[in-house]
Every structure is written in structure tokens, then in C-alpha cells.
């Protein structure tokens, strides 16, 4: 259950960005969660709600988008979705795979006033 630490880090980033934009109200935040990351979205949502309740940010909506795990085979050059966490090229069975997406844990957009 490390979602509490993640929620704290997320709030730190949000508050810093709000200061930069002179914003006082947070309506929503959109975050990207890579499929390979060990985050449980429901837990993160719960922790975010707990940590914002009773503060200026109460009521802000946390939107989450799960980013699929994709890779590029360094042997044959094909790009594909990595299924069942198996880092093997479905085209040539190569195992030298560069991960293209699926490891994200980032905030991408905020709606503020």
C-alpha cells in the first residue's frame, strides 16, 4: 500500500503547479498510470480523496488513464503491445525489447481556476 506516498507526491506537484499559475481552485487532475507500475488506481483515488478532504483542494476530481505496455523489438524493428508482461517479440521471438510505454506515473493535465 504505497499509494499514500504516491498521493502525497502527486499533491506536492499539483500545489507547486497551482502556485506557478496563480490558481486557487483545483477542479480536476489527469494522471497517466503505466500498466507495469504497481499502482492500484482505486487505492490511489481513495488516498487522494482522504488527503484533500478538509483542505482547499477538497472535491477535486482525480482522473486516471492506464497506459498499455508497448515495446519495440531491437531485432526486427516491430512495435507491439506487450501482453501478459512477456517481453518477447510476437513477430520474431526476439527478447531484446525496448519498452516504449507502460511505465508512466505522471500528471499530464490539470483543470484549475
Amino acid at each position: 500500500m504505497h499509494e499514500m506516498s504516491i498521493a502525497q507526491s502527486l499533491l506536492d506537484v499539483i500545489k507547486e503547479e497551482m502556485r506557478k499559475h496563480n490558481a486557487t481552485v483545483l477542479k480536476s487532475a489527469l494522471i497517466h498510470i503505466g500498466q507495469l507500475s504497481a499502482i492500484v488506481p482505486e487505492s490511489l483515488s481513495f488516498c487522494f480523496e482522504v488527503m484533500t478532504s478538509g483542505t482547499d483542494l477538497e472535491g477535486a476530481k482525480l482522473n486516471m488513464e492506464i497506459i498499455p505496455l508497448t515495446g519495440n523489438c531491437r531485432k526486427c524493428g516491430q512495435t507491439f503491445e506487450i501482453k501478459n508482461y512477456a517481453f518477447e517479440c510476437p513477430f520474431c521471438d526476439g527478447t531484446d525489447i525496448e519498452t516504449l510505454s507502460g511505465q508512466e506515473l505522471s500528471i499530464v493535465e490539470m483543470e484549475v481556476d
Partner: protein
Amino acid sequence: MKVSVVKNILAANDRIAQENRAIFDEKNLLVFNLMSSPGAGKTSLLEKTIDALKDQLKMGVIEGDIQSSQDAERIAQKGVPAVQINTGGACHLDGNMIRDTFREFDFDALDLLVVENVGNLVCPAEFKVGEDFKVMILSVTEGEDKPAKYPLMFHESKALLINKIDLLPYVDCSVERIREESLKVNPDLVIFEVSCKTEEGLDAWYDWLKGELKAKS
């Protein structure tokens, strides 16, 4: 008003981990982050490794646990500097907690620093602490389905020790399947089959570790 941000949520931790790493590099100190579920044999592996390599390298250990200083005491009994971190509930160590232990060590007198993380197969893999690489242990009593169920840690680790192979006659576990499943998640994973109880297989681990030390210095 919509604001586009695109910022890594763990950027603050990553930055501290990077600063830690710079300090380790400057001191020519090899650091690995040792992870597993509770009871897989992290401290036992360190005790054996200290005994086997004490004449060849100077080691220090950071012990992470939710509570108690039992692990640091076990390590200190071996004559190795050990600092206990009690996370007080947190399920993992982060860069900041590691940095707080620096004043307890004389890095100039060390070749290897091991960070023994909190026993947990999920969360520690998400937080860098400044290590050169991660090492994980899976014991045969935990079952062969773990790489598929907890892929991140297997994906992030450089080496995997399959521990407690002395118990194989008594459990339904195929080491071959653990190998297959782990290599699917991480084709570059270096795998050792060991028993910290009988010491079977540990020589290969010691040799590999010595190779990593040589590569860093």
C-alpha cells in the same frame, strides 16, 4: 483553465535518489537494493555473504523494516556496520530515508553498501534509492506464479536468487517454471538457485557479486 503539466509524480524522489547515487559513485561504492516478500531470506543471504566475503571486501548494510531493530542487530553481530531504518508503517524505503543514514557510515571505508528493503513484493520496486541495481529473492515456498503476479519487481531487478531450494522435495514448486516465468518478464535477469541454509549455489552468487564490484571500481 486547463493546464498541461506532464511531470513525473515521483520526480522528487528520483532527484534525491540521483543525488544519493552521485555520492556513492564519487566514493566508488557499489550499492544494491535487496528486495523480496517477508521471510524469503534477505537477512540470511546477507549473513552468508558477509561470512564468505569479509576478507575480500568491506560491506555496510541499511536495514529497512516497519518496526524492530532485530535485523540490524543480526548484521552488526557479524562486525559489519548496520543502520536500521524503521519506516513506522510505510511499506518501502525511499531516497530520503536512505540519505538520512549517511552520517552513520564512513563510505571511504566501504566497498559495498546493501540496502535491505522492507519485505514486500510490490511497493519497493517503485522507489529508487540511488542504487546501482536491484536484486530480489523469491523462495520456493512462495510459488512459481509470482513473476506473473508481481511483474514490476522481476522486471526492475538485475539478479534473482531462488532461495530455499533445500525445501524443494517438500513443496509443489518447479524451479524451471520460476525461471521461465521470470525470464518472460525480464529476459536479462541473472538467476541463481540457492539455499542459505545448506549454502548450495551461493558460490555462484558470490562470484557474480565480486564481478559487479570489479566492474564498478
